[in-house]
């Protein structure tokens, strides 16, 4: 019987992979459902096994079965891993994704699975923490905090109960690496969490998954049941979020698991000392935990050997939005933004010029093409007024209205604010109003008005536009003031980082805010 591989990833299914798989089954093939390899322009991808090798075809429609099976289909890709998109990658974390059946324990073990856990359990907890420290692994969820330091704090904490919490509430638009890993290689995350449990002395863990990822929830639940014996005495359970973006913030996530509103906690105390149910807790992102099995099985040096500056190892970059070759591209830090967008991504899907890219989700900065020489590195991005965040890159062509995107950033913050702190809760609402006035003034004939002071108080508490202040200049001054207040006064990244997209849009694309266009962007 011919063996055929078709992805069961949510993105592939959204493009019709289920129908394609059914058509191959009806034709008498043995269909193995894998995760996605991560290049969506070739999904639904079908790989046909011939003499032990896999020959790819994509995109494939249900009516293409006969042409694919006799090899005459025009979308023949050959060895998928040899395609330029894949050949340039350094796949540490996603090595198995798209290759194996995500819910086949034998497949997982045959591809190097559980070797990291076995290696970890053969050495004392401190040695595991030391390996993670030596690897240089930093949190892959956004802030880039050293993972080993976090684990050390929890290991050193004295308590009867400790917890491992996986933050799988990746809600950033433009990111899908967590979803792909949970759907395509769930045992990898489970193994990483079990290693963390051994390292810090925790025997219980939670995977908190956002409800917008129903496929990931189902796959993780099944995988946890299947691996319960393998990871014992460590035990895991899935918790499902309920549509609140702010629960991706670690302290809000902990409150949510505890059955409360997902509101941000003021720090200190750090979750490492007083986290879930008040106990010492390791809380890491999916990608951080999924990087750990590689570090333990291949060695910290192998991981640290790749990277740039203090950003070690690989980053699964997600090319999204209006991009020709969108998908997941795992590579060592240091690659430039331009190489990613224009080289690997191939520019826009619409064929129009790239005008802006947003890096790091809805709280990330917008960059113009003049800044495309920026290397992918936590420090370099911070210096350029942005953040890597979850490494999502959303590409926009020249039809984008950046004032509209700035307004959307404020609107998103107001919809998703947990409400605990005033700068975020009220500031975002005022921000939408200010943006509305800026857009209205821009679209009308701009009239010169004098600059006004007292922006801060006005920004927070005045919703009625002062007739004399409705001109562009006072409004943009007000916007900057408001962003300043949100940045320095908010409890967490939602309010604190919303100024990144807003101000970067204003700074790099002033013409969309009715101000004169920059004469010539200086080289960075």
């Amino acid at each position, binding site marked *: 019987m011919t063996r055929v591989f078709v992805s069961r990833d949510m993105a592939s299914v*959204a*493009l019709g992979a289920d129908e394609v798989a059914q058509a191959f089954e009806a034709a008498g093939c043995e269909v193995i459902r894998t995760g996605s390899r991560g290049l969506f322009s070739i999904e639904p991808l079908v790989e046909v096994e011939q003499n032990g090798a896999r020959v790819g075809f994509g995109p494939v429609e249900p009516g293409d079965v006969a042409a694919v099976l006799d090899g005459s289909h025009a979308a023949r890709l050959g060895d998928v891993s040899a395609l330029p998109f894949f050949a340039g990658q350094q796949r540490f974390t996603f090595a198995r994704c798209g290759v194996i059946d995500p819910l086949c324990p034998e497949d997982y073990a045959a591809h190097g699975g559980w070797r990291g856990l076995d290696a970890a359990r053969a050495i004392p907890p401190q040695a595991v923490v030391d390996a993670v420290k030596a690897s240089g692994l930093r949190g892959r969820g956004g802030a880039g905090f050293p993972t080993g330091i976090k684990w050390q704090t929890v290991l050193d904490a004295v308590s009867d109960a400790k917890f491992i919490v996986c933050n799988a509430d990746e809600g950033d*638009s433009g*990111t899908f690496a967590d979803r792909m890993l949970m759907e395509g290689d769930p045992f990898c995350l489970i193994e990483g969490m079990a290693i963390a449990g051994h390292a810090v002395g925790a025997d219980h863990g939670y995977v908190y998954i956002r409800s917008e990822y129903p496929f990931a929830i189902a796959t993780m639940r099944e995988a946890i049941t299947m691996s319960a014996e393998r990871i014992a005495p460590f035990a895991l359970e899935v918790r499902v979020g309920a*549509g609140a973006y702010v629960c991706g913030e670690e302290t809000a996530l902990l409150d949510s698991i505890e*059955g409360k509103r997902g509101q941000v906690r003021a720090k200190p105390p750090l979750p490492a000392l007083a986290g879930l149910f008040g106990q010492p807790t390791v809380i890491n992102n999916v990608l951080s935990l999924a990087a750990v099995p590689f570090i333990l099985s291949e060695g910290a040096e192998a991981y640290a050997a790749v990277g740039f500056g203090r950003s070690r190892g690989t980053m699964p970059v997600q090319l999204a*939005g209006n991009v020709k070759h969108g998908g997941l591209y795992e590579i060592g830090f240091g690659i430039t933004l331009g190489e990613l967008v224009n080289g690997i991504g191939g520019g826009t899907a619409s064929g129009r010029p790239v005008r802006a890219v947003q890096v790091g989700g809805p709280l990330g900065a917008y960059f113009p093409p003049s800044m495309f020489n920026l290397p992918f590195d936590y420090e370099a991005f911070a210096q350029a007024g942005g953040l890597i965040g979850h490494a999502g890159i959303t590409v926009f062509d020249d039809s984008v209205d950046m004032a509209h995107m700035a307004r959307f950033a404020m609107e*998103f913050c107001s919809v998703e604010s*947990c409400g605990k702190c005033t700068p975020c809760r009220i500031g975002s609402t005022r921000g939408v109003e200010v943006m509305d006035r800026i857009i209205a003034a821009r679209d009308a004939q701009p009239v010169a008005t004098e600059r006004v002071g007292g922006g801060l108080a006005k920004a927070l508490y005045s919703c009625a536009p002062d007739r004399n202040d409705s001109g562009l200049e006072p409004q943009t001054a007000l916007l900057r003031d408001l962003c300043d207040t949100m940045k320095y006064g908010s409890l967490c990244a939602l309010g604190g980082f919303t100024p990144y997209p807003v101000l970067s849009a204003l700074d790099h694309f002033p013409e969309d805010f009715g101000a004169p266009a920059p004469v010539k962007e200086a080289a960075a």
Partner: protein
Amino acid sequence: MKQDKAVDEATRLIEDWTRVHGRTRDRLLPLLHWLQEEIGYVDDPAVPAIARALNLSRADVHGVVTFYHDFRRAPAGRHVVKLCRAESCQARGGAAMEAEATARLGVAMGETRRDGQVTLEPVYCLGLCAIGPNALVDGRPIARIDAAALERIVQEVSA
């Protein structure tokens, strides 16, 4: 009385569930998810029953139900269309599709059509960001929504 019967029913369901899954506070979100799955929404009369079952105040439960976008306090339409409003879908023409969808379906974003046929809801990212604009139609993901795809969705939820 119809209302009392609904309350009795909810109370019984909640009691059954908590006997199996426990009564600690951290069971609240799983309980709400389950209840919504069973009944379709978390109605107000269920709130005191939940509060009793988990030894919480009504305000506690009300606060949680109203905090999370997922929990409904009224029944949804027969079909639920969730349309992504986030940046990646916007970069691929999502805003135009959103306008088109509200017009074609005859219902505003976040609302249920009067005839109860369809609920249209915003969602902020389904993680399908390179193939937008995206939607979940009765839980089924649909990518690259253009005029033709939207037409198919309209037909499907009108049936």
